[in-house]
């Protein structure tokens, strides 16, 4: 039998890397390089056209000092902490109902999922705008009953809520994942609990919630990340207005980078957003030790 040369052995052992190279190039060029260069730029006053004239920490200081940036940060928190719980609760509630054996359940499941198929599109944001603007269908509907409905998109106290509502309405994906998890809860646990006299609420909180907690955790993390990165809704529907009430951080970053060309400032804001997101993700992972039940790992 012919003995393998050193080169052949090396090739055989490392062939996998060759297949990974296209991805690796993509990662290095389109992810790692922009990621690291934005970190560098965040410590400069980099303007897209006049370049860098000095190194500074001002960009970071301003995020917590400049009123417009503080407001945007606060708005982003409000948006995330309104959207994520509402969406999770709503998705779980609908999934729970659709888990019952009722007539036409498949039709309902499809109907509730449809907004998620359409949801991320620009067209839906435009539709939302047409529905809720001052001359839109919703206000017209209320006007028929003599009710002067709020100015949903031009009143700063309502606009953010309307943007949240658009995201909450797209609960289908989270609902489908919850539904799959609910299907996996063993029926005998419910039967045993019924025999022991546990009511529906008790069963829900003591059986259903613990057993689907890994899925709740998964949905929480993904929805949190999505919420902090939200851009389409405010950009298309309100352009960040009125009075900056829907200027989320992602929109502020976009405006600074691509309309004011303040790349240094935008990079610092992006890094602050990244750190905040990282903090909440780590917090979520840390907290799972206290509330997420994994059946294959001593229940934790």
């Amino acid at each position, binding site marked *: 039998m012919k003995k393998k040369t050193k080169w052949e052995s090396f090739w055989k052992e490392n062939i996998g890397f060759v297949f990974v190279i296209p991805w690796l190039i993509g990662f290095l060029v389109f992810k790692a390089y922009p990621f690291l260069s934005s970190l560098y730029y965040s410590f400069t006053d980099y303007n897209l*056209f006049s370049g860098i004239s000095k190194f500074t920490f001002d960009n970071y200081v301003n995020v917590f000092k400049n009123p417009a940036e503080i407001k945007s940060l606060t708005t982003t928190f409000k948006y995330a902490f309104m959207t994520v719980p509402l969406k999770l609760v709503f998705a779980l509630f609908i999934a729970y109902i659709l888990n019952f054996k009722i007539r036409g359940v498949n039709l309902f499941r499809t109907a509730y999922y449809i907004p998620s198929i359409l949801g991320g599109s620009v067209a839906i944001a435009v539709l939302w705008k*047409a529905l809720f603007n*001052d*001359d839109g269908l919703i206000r017209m509907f209320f006007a028929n009953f003599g009710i002067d409905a709020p100015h949903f998109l031009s009143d700063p106290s309502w606009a953010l809520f309307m943007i949240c509502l658009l995201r909450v309405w797209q609960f289908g994906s989270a609902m489908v994942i919850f539904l799959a998890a609910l299907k996996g809860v063993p029926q005998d646990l419910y039967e045993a609990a019924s025999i022991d006299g546990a009511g529906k609420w008790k069963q829900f909180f003591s059986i259903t919630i613990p057993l689907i907690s890994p899925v709740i955790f998964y949905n929480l993390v993904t929805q949190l990340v999505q919420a902090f990165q939200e851009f389409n809704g405010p950009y298309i529907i309100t352009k960040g207005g*009125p009075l900056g009430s829907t*200027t989320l951080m992602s929109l*502020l970053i976009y*405006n600074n980078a*691509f309309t004011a060309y303040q790349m240094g400032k935008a990079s610092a804001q992006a890094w602050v957003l990244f750190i905040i997101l990282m903090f909440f993700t780590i917090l979520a992972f840390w907290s799972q030790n206290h509330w997420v039940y994994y059946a294959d790992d001593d229940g934790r």
Partner: protein
Amino acid sequence: MKKHLVTLLSAFLAASALAGCGSSSADTTPAASTEPETTVETAAEPADAAAYENCTLKFDWWGGDSRHEATLAAIAAFEEAYPGITIETNYGAWSDWETAKAAEYISGNNPDVQQTNFDWIGKYDKGGNTYLDLNTVSDVLDLSQWSATELETCSDENGGIAGLPVSITGRTFYWDKTTFDAAGIDTPKTLEDLLAAGPVFQEKLGDNYYPLVIGEYDRAILMAFYLQAKTGKPILAEDNTLTVTEADLQEGFEFIKSLEDAHAIPTEQYILGEGADSMDKSSRFINGEYAGIFEWDSSPKKYLSALEGTGNELVVGNVFPELQSYQKVSLMFSISAKTAHPKEAALFLNFLLNEKDGIEIMGTERGVPSSKVAFSTLDSEGAIDWATSEAHNAVLDSNPIYWNPLFDNSALKGDSPALYTDLFDQYSYGMITSEQAAAQLYAGYQSVLASN
């Protein structure tokens, strides 16, 4: 055999690559026989147009459909007149256009010929390395069709001509005469008329009818006109100084508020509540609820199109005597400093701006042309549409003064965070006082002037 095949393929590929580069002097095609006819007043016949190289030029512009159609037709006529020169086009709407162009300037991929904005000289041509100095191609591009002042206005920091002003523009009022007739009053001729029209509209037509609608940037311009009438000077002077005080700006904000209070204009909340992307797409404007706009003299066509079929008649108004207008270059055509074919690019521009065929096809799609020959050609043929012509005359009659491009600096104009949007919104919503708004705008102007 295999070696020969590889050699052959390599040669083929190299030849293809070179062919893609475009021209060679060996391909020179005399164009004299296909030169378009020129009129007597056309002093625009390029002296050295007979010899040019075959090549492909990239050209881009922004605008609406009618502008696209006219420009494409002019390009087809040019390609017929100058066989061997091909124009590759890229065009679209203004929305996000500048963002895409900014990226091209950074990467150095801007096309050979481009429709440009006046303030782009300051923004993207620092050092004068982005746009070609058009003096260098004056042998084929007839610069004598513009006044020395116009050309000087478009000069870069080295004194080179960075772009040719296609048209000069200013703002005036346009009125929906049908709505004014319904209210039983004449269209406003003075500020006083406008203020008086507000209560009449409210009483006779309803709360949702306004004689005029102006957004944040319109308010900034109207306020500048108002203050310029008081001082007699451009709000931002040519030497980059601010000619108004904080107290003047406060008075300016209060003037805008007085229009809201008199029901002459709607509040910002009312305007934003409709969510229209632009006023020509506003159903309130189309159905006559907003009976006036304050717009550039180069853009009445889109408003006329919006009112088509509604039965509402749009008329051009004068600039009120209580206001001092300004005029600016509406847009330019520039040639890239990096183009490999400056002469051919100049021939193309000369065709669009100074040659009869190009002039006639382009018409007033970019406003009333600044080129003398273009203006006289269109004027003699009655080809300047009545609205553009009337609006242009209204602006000229108002004796417009100098306009500093820093007025449109991105820290001031644009989506929030930009001062005009933020301050006029906050003030209209009642979140800040006129004093606070004036202080912030004053600081904003000072900051922009200091950093340029």
